[in-house]
């Protein structure tokens, strides 16, 4: 391999010139000739029967092209919206269709669509609909939903329990018999709203005489949307094209095949003209899926020396009103909750529950934040109970580097990692002993400082195909095409579909290194199902390690072909020809050489090729990795709690992440920053709150607190590099690590700050009121 120059370099993103000048291509920016506008009429009730939708007055409104209720559209759906296995094959769930027909189960569920010549005309007409409901009792609380006398959402299931399963490994009874310390704790993962700054949007154009459908969507998964639009609407897959251009953030919220994608496509088919729908923020807060919404009951068995022997944990997962496409994916937490630690047993139980709230699905981290929160809180709870330093408790329980690769209790194999390495570096950066001295001094002055650790380990890089199939119902792998044009310029097609991650830049870096091409000669294309083979899209921090590796392998195949052609043209033995920096030359005779441009030119003239070789300079790779990748790191939050108001400020935040080889450190650090911010958001600010009737009280950005610039500090980041053996680049994922790590770091820091008040735990978000109440639970007296 040529000396690496591009991989590892912080190259500025080629995506940016468009985006900083206002010339991006988001769905809403598409030219709008002859487009009809679709408005989704949504349930205003959390649980009700639809008695009737009277449309005649609305049909008379100006500009209306069509009004359809669920009953009008239902006959055209040849399948329900997809639901994947997602770690719980045992679950029971109802079929969910894009639009309700006779019963609604959450506020925001589609019940009718109005199509008109403008968005405002559609909205005006929708106001003239006469919708009659018969209210049903609502079920909003996870624990109440489980009660035998609870109203039931789905009669065919007979209760609100989708599944109640065990995920256990090791001898938990023995662990508890051996325990000198037992701790019980409830941990709550509040319901979160993802809030990508661009809401969703869909533009569909169906051509009746061709029976072809093109859909532009603000989605993370154009390839899956293509498959399912074909299945649901009965259009051959090859006639469906889905395009994701610029996408304004996803964070998991655009990972599903959504009702509106189907409804807009169907409206275009019915009307024979292009139709678009743009989600407004009020819609987005209730119609785009939510995240987390879990209760965890935890029991810990430990020894007085800080050894954690085993954990019993029940995860109550609020699925919302239906089981979403990856709705049970968060049950992965039960399989990975041991984190980087050597436990003897983990006894897990997962319970999935239906409630009259917006469906939940993946939100940045999807199961790994919950697992990490659990085990990182466990470490601190144990440290607190036995009176040891939380750093020492972690070190005591770490899987030693010498034992890597390490199989966890459930047989998942950690690929590589030295957990002390990142922790040591983080401790140096914060100057731990100095902080403890400062903390002690500050307490004397009535000032409450705290430090919190999170030495996370996470699993990502989806594939491998075989391992992901039982888990998600879909075999996942990486896809790339590297295609050199006649002049030696490259087009690279990738299977992932980015929305801010910078793949056009980083994937060009991979090809640039492998082929010795200048970056400006490499185009990276993504997010268009009409171009190249099927890809597996972007989620789960998978792109670099799976599609990136596929890109590398395709480039290597092209390089090998170039070398063979060069040997033929130079009349040299193949073994004597070396490829380096964009040139093939005969070993020991560098003047006998051909550039990649010259070789590619020959590749398009088959008579110049070695006998039997086909023309062209193209390679396709479907990369199925042998294992997942397991990024890890040490995050440390330093907080100051205001003794008067209970307000918490993150004063410093130190993150040392190991994601293996870093393709572009600037991009990696950007991912870490954004991830940390979202994790701090969960710890301190964000929560979706419903009233007793099931109305979302935090339905606008006035009420739902997304962190602003003044709420956050600048972050201090560093890296160690432990290459992954799971792919030829040695990369791991980094898109979610910040979010996975930061939430427990902040909560651990707050609990640490509140030690003088005897506080052991605090529910998220740790609002000033909650903190203040804890400070005053014993009349405000400190210990």
């Amino acid at each position: 391999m040529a000396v690496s120059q591009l991989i590892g370099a912080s190259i500025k993103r080629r995506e940016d010139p468009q985006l900083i000048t206002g010339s991006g291509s988001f769905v809403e920016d598409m030219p709008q000739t002859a487009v009809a506008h679709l408005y989704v009429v949504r349930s205003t009730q959390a649980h009700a029967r639809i008695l009737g939708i009277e449309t005649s007055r609305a049909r008379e409104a100006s500009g209306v092209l069509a009004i359809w209720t669920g009953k009008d559209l239902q006959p055209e759906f040849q399948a329900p919206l997809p639901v994947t296995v997602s770690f719980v094959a045992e679950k029971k769930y109802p079929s969910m269709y894009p639009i309700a027909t006779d019963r609604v189960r959450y506020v925001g569920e589609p019940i009718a669509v109005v199509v008109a010549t403008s968005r405002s005309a559609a909205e005006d007409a929708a106001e003239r609909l006469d919708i009659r409901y018969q209210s049903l009792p609502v079920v909003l609380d996870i624990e109440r939903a489980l009660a035998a006398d609870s109203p039931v959402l789905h009669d065919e299931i007979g209760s609100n329990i989708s599944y109640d399963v065990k995920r256990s490994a090791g001898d938990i009874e023995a662990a508890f018999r051996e325990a000198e310390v037992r701790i019980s704790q409830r941990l709550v993962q509040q319901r979160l709203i993802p809030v990508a700054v661009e809401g969703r949007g869909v533009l569909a154009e169906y051509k009746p005489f061709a029976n072809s459908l093109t859909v532009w969507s603000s989605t993370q998964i154009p390839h899956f949307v293509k498959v399912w639009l074909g299945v649901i609407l009965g259009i051959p897959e090859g006639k469906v094209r889905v395009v994701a251009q610029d996408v304004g953030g996803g964070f998991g919220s655009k990972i599903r095949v959504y009702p509106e994608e189907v409804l807009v496509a169907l409206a275009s088919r019915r009307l024979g003209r292009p139709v678009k729908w743009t989600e407004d923020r009020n819609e987005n807060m209730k119609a785009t899926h939510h995240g987390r919404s879990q209760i965890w009951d935890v029991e810990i068995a430990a020894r007085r020396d800080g050894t954690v022997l085993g954990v019993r944990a029940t995860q109550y997962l609020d699925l919302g009103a239906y089981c979403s496409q990856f709705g049970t994916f968060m049950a992965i937490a039960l399989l990975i909750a041991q984190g980087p630690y050597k436990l003897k047993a983990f006894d897990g139980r997962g319970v999935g529950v239906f409630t009259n709230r917006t469906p939940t699905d993946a939100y940045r981290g999807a199961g790994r934040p919950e697992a990490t929160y659990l085990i990182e809180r466990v470490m601190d709870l144990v440290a607190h109970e036995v009176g040891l330093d939380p750093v020492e408790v972690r070190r005591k329980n770490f899987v030693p580097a010498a034992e890597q690769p390490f199989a966890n209790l459930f047989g998942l194999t950690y690929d590589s990692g030295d957990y002390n390495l990142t922790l040591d570096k983080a401790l140096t950066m914060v100057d731990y002993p100095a902080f403890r001295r400062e903390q002690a001094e500050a307490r004397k002055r009535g000032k409450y400082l705290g430090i919190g650790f999170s030495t996370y380990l996470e699993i990502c890089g989806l594939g491998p195909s075989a391992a992901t199939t039982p888990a998600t119902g879909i075999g996942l792998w990486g896809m790339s095409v590297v295609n050199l044009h006649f002049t030696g310029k490259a087009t690279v097609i990738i299977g992932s579909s980015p929305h801010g991650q910078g793949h056009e830049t980083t994937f060009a870096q991979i090809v640039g290194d492998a082929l010795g091409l200048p970056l400006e000669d490499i185009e990276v294309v993504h997010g268009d199902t009409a171009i190249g083979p099927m890809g597996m899209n972007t989620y789960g921090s998978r792109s670099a390690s799976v599609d990136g590796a596929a890109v590398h392998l395709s480039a290597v195949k092209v390089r090998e072909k170039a070398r063979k052609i060069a040997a033929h043209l130079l009349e040299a033995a193949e073994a004597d020809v070396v490829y380096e920096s964009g040139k093939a030359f005969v070993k020991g005779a560098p003047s006998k050489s051909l550039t990649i441009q010259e070789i590619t030119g020959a590749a398009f003239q088959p008579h110049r090729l070695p006998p039997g070789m086909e023309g062209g300079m193209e390679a396709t790779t479907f990369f199925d990795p042998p294992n997942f990748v397991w990024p890890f790191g040490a995050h440390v939050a330093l907080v100051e709690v205001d003794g008067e108001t209970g307000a918490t400020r993150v004063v410093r935040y130190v993150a040392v992440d190991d994601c293996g080889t870093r393709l572009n450190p600037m991009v990696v650090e950007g991912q870490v920053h954004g991830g940390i911010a979202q994790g701090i958001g969960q710890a301190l600010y964000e929560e979706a709150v419903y009233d007793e009737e099931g109305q979302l009280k935090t339905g606008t950005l006035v009420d739902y607190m997304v962190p602003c610039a003044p709420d956050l500090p600048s972050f201090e980041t560093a890296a160690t590099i432990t290459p992954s053996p799971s792919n030829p680049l040695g990369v791991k994922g980094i898109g979610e690590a910040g979010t996975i790590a930061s939430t427990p770091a902040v909560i651990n820091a707050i609990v640490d700050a509140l030690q003088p008040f005897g506080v052991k735990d605090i529910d998220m978000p740790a609002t000033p009121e909650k903190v203040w109440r804890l400070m005053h639970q014993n009349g405000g007296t400190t210990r």
Partner: protein
Amino acid sequence: MRQKVAITINGTRYENEVEPRLLLVYYLREYAGLTGTHVGCDTSNCGACTVDVNGHSVKSCTLFAVQADGAQVTTIEGLAKGKELHPLQQAFWDEHGLQCGYCTPGMIMAARQLLERNGNPTEAEIRSGLEGNLCRCTGYHNIVKAVQAAAKAMAGAEARQPAAAGS
């Protein structure tokens, strides 16, 4: 019913008859075809639609187009001079101050006003000056760095060219 408006946007005068309820942001996007100004919320919280109206940074979803009648408006499309980027655009690029790029036009427009008012802001001043603009990707870290870098670049440019007016 419809009302006539004349709005000068990035130096070009636009005249249209619009519904009184049309928000300025939709006028910019749909009548002037300037889609760089984005809509991120309905409640004036996110700032994605920030533009400059008569020298003031304004969330264009809080203003009706008819209220901007006669106004001079600058949008993100009006910042670069040909291929030469505005120092803030350059700095957002250099410092990786954007990821998905959806909030970026509004963020840059808000930062532009911030630097016009205070050419040498502290980190805290930058953070509080951008309080009205939400970004979900960057955690604001590199946005702060970008504004600092732009402030430096703009101060340098002014020192070299003291007579030049601020852009």
